[in-house]
């Protein structure tokens, strides 16, 4: 009996529920071990790069192609410290040199088309790559059109800094440095779900910490599209009170819930909400977002009114298009859209695919975790930590009792752990060597 490689690789967790593989595995083992499964990964961030590294570790015979348009890895976690003046862009940027050596094929290019019937991916450079399994880890697509006036010209002045880069995070830092004392920094929080739930509230801390040191008459106005602080609420409120006078007449932070930005005007330096127009010396509006553009090309962005990608929790394979897996922020799950989750689910997906390549079922009860630190900009930090386990009744990964919670209070110890987390997750994601010289500080 022979099993066609393509047919074999098509066995997914969804199908595996009905078809038991154990009978097939015995006769398929040789042909599968000989076959080089072609795996194409789009995006070398926390999800894609981690996936690629672990895929090559756990199934070295697989042929992994990693496609990434950016010349270097720039970390969104820790990018708020650049706004505070604690780190510079180069401190949160790392080369792809090491992951390049791990994968079979590193392609510095942009994906322009995906054909899920022919199972091919085409790039702007005109190259086409065939795949047995496609892994989409492209992060998020920002929806500028949802905010009136957020056109190409306006984007030269108003930055989102929600994808860290010199043109975004770097320019926003320059704007804060150029701002006179007594100025107002107006920032926004998109409606949940969005990338990095605590990130905006951490950003308020980080910018306020810079103002406290360098421009004490300045203020931070937070326009939140949500009805309340969406993550680590008690800890952020405590930090705002302790360090920035929140709740007093002299508060450096002015928090306004239910204030979704509807329009921006770079000439008048104004943000319009449903309630009023807010003037700012520096404006930082994060537009609404959805799963990465590449997920639209593959037809897998079908959840939540076409904004995020539903996945099978055991394999992270799309529930609508076979052999397409979605990692990181693009996936529609109950996990927070964090760097740790992208890293950990990258491994989970590599584990599931490597098990299938070995002729076994994917683990029916996987465990994934999240550990997410937020800094105050004042030498302290705090966390949320969660373990997610497979629940057969809910058909989802959910935290067991006690396996989810936040810090009791901010601390310097957790700042040291946050800095350590960054170095370790960057190393784990990009395959940085033991002696890599990190310069980022907490």
């Amino acid at each position: 009996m022979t099993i066609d490689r393509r047919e074999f690789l098509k066995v997914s967790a969804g199908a595996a529920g009905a078809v038991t593989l154990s009978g097939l595995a015995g006769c398929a083992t040789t042909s599968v071990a000989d076959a080089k499964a072609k795996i194409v990964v789009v995006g070398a961030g926390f999800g894609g790069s981690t996936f690629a590294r672990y895929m090559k570790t756990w199934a070295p015979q697989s042929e992994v192609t990693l496609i990434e348009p950016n010349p270097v890895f720039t970390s969104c976690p820790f990018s708020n410290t650049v706004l505070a003046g604690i780190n510079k862009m180069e401190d949160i940027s790392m080369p792809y040199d090491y992951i390049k050596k791990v994968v079979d094929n590193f392609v510095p290019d942009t994906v322009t088309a995906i054909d899920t019937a022919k199972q091919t991916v085409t790039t702007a450079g005109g190259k086409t790559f065939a795949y047995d399994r496609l892994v989409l880890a492209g992060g998020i697509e920002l929806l500028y059109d949802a905010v009136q006036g957020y056109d190409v010209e306006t984007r030269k002045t108003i930055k989102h800094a929600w994808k860290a880069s010199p043109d975004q995070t770097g320019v926003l830092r320059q704007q804060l440095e150029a701002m006179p004392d007594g100025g107002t920094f107006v920032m926004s929080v998109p409606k949940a779900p969005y990338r990095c739930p605590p990130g905006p509230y951490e950003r308020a801390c980080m910018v306020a910490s810079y103002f406290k040191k360098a421009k004490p008459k300045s203020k931070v106005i937070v326009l939140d599209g949500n009805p309340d602080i969406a993550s680590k609420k008690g800890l952020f409120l405590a930090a705002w009170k302790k360090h920035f006078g929140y709740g007093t007449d002299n508060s450096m932070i002015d928090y306004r819930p239910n204030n979704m930005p509807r329009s921006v005007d770079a000439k008048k330096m104004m943000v319009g909400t449903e309630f009023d127009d807010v003037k700012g010396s520096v404006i930082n509006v994060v537009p609404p977002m959805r799963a990465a553009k590449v997920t639209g090309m593959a037809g897998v962005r079908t959840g939540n009114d076409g904004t995020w990608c539903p996945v099978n929790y055991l394999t992270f394979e799309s529930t609508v298009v076979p052999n397409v897996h979605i990692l990181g922020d693009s996936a529609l799950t109950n996990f927070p859209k964090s760097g740790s989750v992208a890293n950990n689910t990258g491994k989970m997906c590599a584990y599931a695919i490597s098990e299938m390549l070995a002729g076994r079922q994917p683990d029916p009860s996987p465990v994934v975790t999240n550990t997410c630190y937020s800094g105050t900009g004042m030498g302290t930090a705090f966390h949320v930590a969660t373990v997610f386990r497979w629940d057969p009744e809910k058909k989802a990964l959910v935290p067991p009792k006690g396996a989810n919670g936040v810090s009791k209070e901010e601390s310097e110890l957790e700042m040291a752990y946050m800095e350590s987390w960054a170095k370790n997750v960057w190393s784990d994601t990009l395959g940085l060597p033991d002696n890599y010289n990190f310069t980022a500080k907490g």
Partner: protein
Amino acid sequence: MKKTLALSLLIAGALGAVASAHADPRARFMAANCSYCHGPDGHSRGAVPSLAGLEAKYFVDQMKAFRDGSRPATVMQKHAMGYTDAEYEAMGAWFAAHK
């Protein structure tokens, strides 16, 4: 030290021998769950301790101490509550076998 090393290897070997073909990749995956904080293969580059090469019993005892609160923790009590005793042992054996 040599004795404990030999013992760890013995335990890891025994576990590998009796476990199903499925158990080893699962232990390897769960150990990899730790690495975004504890470093690739348990080799930390920061203030968080390395796990590579720890004695399996020490690893298991610490996880139990985190779970019952007898060892103070920041994030580790939550993580310890998310795994079973058998999983502590599988991860402990993996880290013991990987220096």
